[in-house]
């Protein structure tokens, strides 16, 4: 046998072995969920969804009559005077019960005159507390404190044998109250306009192992009932040892619109020199 044949056979064997190892690694990366977030070089195009629900709700409200006056008529009178003077104190509860029938995930209707919000109603499905100041969540995270559910209770998670039902936590966004808790984490603002705080978020048990192996950070998602603003660098290490990488904002209509998960339809309410707006936010 020629030495040259042996040599090239060795080279070819090495090459084939390397190809098999490489192929196996790529297959693992593509197939297994653990590896699939490794974010290989990718190029993604997704056409923006058409979102028309808030506009359709505004169109329907233009036709709805309540107490002998249309909703728009009551809204204009409210924006020019007030709920009391326009005798529209029943409007918020009427709008709330009307929109609850649509079973939307979140909604808010507001009558505003410039920056002055004259009236506002919002969905209460995920809210809790005596004055609906809290959000039902699996855990509160940084910047929120657990409060009593009060009259608006959270869904039951499970019922232990012979014990009281375990509900979801009722969490209120309150940074000063959070900082007064024993052993709070450092609170740092984040997000485009500082509306969020860096929080633990949700992560699977193997996130740490993943980070150690691949040297890249896991995508941390926010706790339930918070607006996820991603994992910005200001939330990364050394802040809280790298354990608060999710940037989470309160689930307000403004924050949802800013984050692009809700859309707002704005209807002008014109009366003489007064220009107000009826704002419908929904998702």
């Amino acid at each position, binding site marked *: 046998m*020629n*030495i*040259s044949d042996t*040599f090239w056979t060795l*080279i070819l064997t*090495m*090459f084939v072995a*390397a*190809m098999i190892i*490489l192929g196996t690694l*790529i297959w693992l*990366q593509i197939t297994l969920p653990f590896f699939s977030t490794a974010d*290989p*070089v*990718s*190029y*993604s*195009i*997704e*056409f923006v*969804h*058409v979102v*028309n*629900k808030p506009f*359709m*709700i505004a*169109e*329907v409200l*233009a*036709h*709805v*009559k*309540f107490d002998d006056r249309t909703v728009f008529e009551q809204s204009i009178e409210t924006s020019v005077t007030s709920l009391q003077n326009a005798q529209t104190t029943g409007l918020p509860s009427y709008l709330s019960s*009307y*929109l609850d*029938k*649509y*079973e*939307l995930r979140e909604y808010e209707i507001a009558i505003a005159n410039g920056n002055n919000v004259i009236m506002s109603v919002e969905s209460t499905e995920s809210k809790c507390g005596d004055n609906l100041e809290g959000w039902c969540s699996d855990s509160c995270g940084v910047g929120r404190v657990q409060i009593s559910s009060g009259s608006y209770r959270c869904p039951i998670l499970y019922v232990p044998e012979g014990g009281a039902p375990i509900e979801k936590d009722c969490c209120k966004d309150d940074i000063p109250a959070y900082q007064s808790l024993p052993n709070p984490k450092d609170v740092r603002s984040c997000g485009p306009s500082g509306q969020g705080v860096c929080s633990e978020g949700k992560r699977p048990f193997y996130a740490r192992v993943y980070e150690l192996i691949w040297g890249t950070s896991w995508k941390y998602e926010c706790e339930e009932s918070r607006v996820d603003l991603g994992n910005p660098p200001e939330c990364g290490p050394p802040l809280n040892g790298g354990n608060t990488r999710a940037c989470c904002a309160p689930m307000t209509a403004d924050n949802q619109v800013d984050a692009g998960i809700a859309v707002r339809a704005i209807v002008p309410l014109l009366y003489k020199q007064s220009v107000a707006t009826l704002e419908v936010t*929904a998702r």
Partner: protein
Amino acid sequence: MKFDVMAIVMFLLRMGPAILFVFFMMLMFFSFKVDVRENTMERFVFELSDTVTSDTRLVADESVFSPEKLTAAEQAEIEQYAQNCDFGYQIDIEASTGPTVCGSDNDCSGFCGNVCGLTTLDMGITGNCNCNLEVFGADFCECKKTSDREWQDSYKWRLGYMPTSMFMSNPIVETSSKFPVGIEMSDTALPATMEITAYDAFLTRISCATAKAFHTKEKFVMKFATNQLPFGATAFRRSGTAGTHVCLYNGNDPLAGECRYLPNIPVEDLDILAGLLSSARNSKWQVTAYPLKTSSACPPDASAIAGRSDTVSTILLCMEDV
């Protein structure tokens, strides 16, 4: 040839970087993925919602449907109002208000007139208007639009194409979305939900290939697997004497729900069963829609196929295995 270990080591050292470079390029190549999500059906559903909620043949005001117009549209074909060649669709509109409480059948006469559009009321459980007795909870009104329809206890309309054979063989793809709308009621609007379900099924594909071949004067190919064919479908042809629809047939009877509005497009009958039997073991097929200027059998002569400047006299559908 002398075995020179040093030469081999040196060669490997020189080749090493080159091999690593090849590996790196391969890694880059295999790691690169292009992900394009057109969401065509979802976009169609949203665009259709805009079209439907502003069509004055259906609505009293933007997004507020008129019960009378919807009842009239139920008798007609919704694709006369808005059509997409590629997808069929069904629209369900249902009021979100709860049931109407009643004490006796007579309390439901107004409800049955409004909700089911009934002018002749036949009261009772065997008729078309009834006060349903509940063991627990309040009794409520219900009515039937026609004797073969199910009871309904709220404003509800169903319009459009729904492949009923989907229970036996699934449509190829379907997607749906819900939209908040209103139903005009005296001088206000009841909250309601409109659900649009789009279907990409055998019938929509074959009818669309036919329409495209007719309008563009080019042949169109539609591929399908045997299991995507609705159960019992043996033929595709124009239906009835009016000839405004094309349907899938089982023998001489059209398959329930498997018809589509497609007027003014002449199309030759397609014998699906004969095609299937011609190669019984095969499971993948294609139907080619040819625009013809003169009649011809499958496969058509090139001289019979219509060109750009010709008038299309008919569409010939030829089925063959792949």
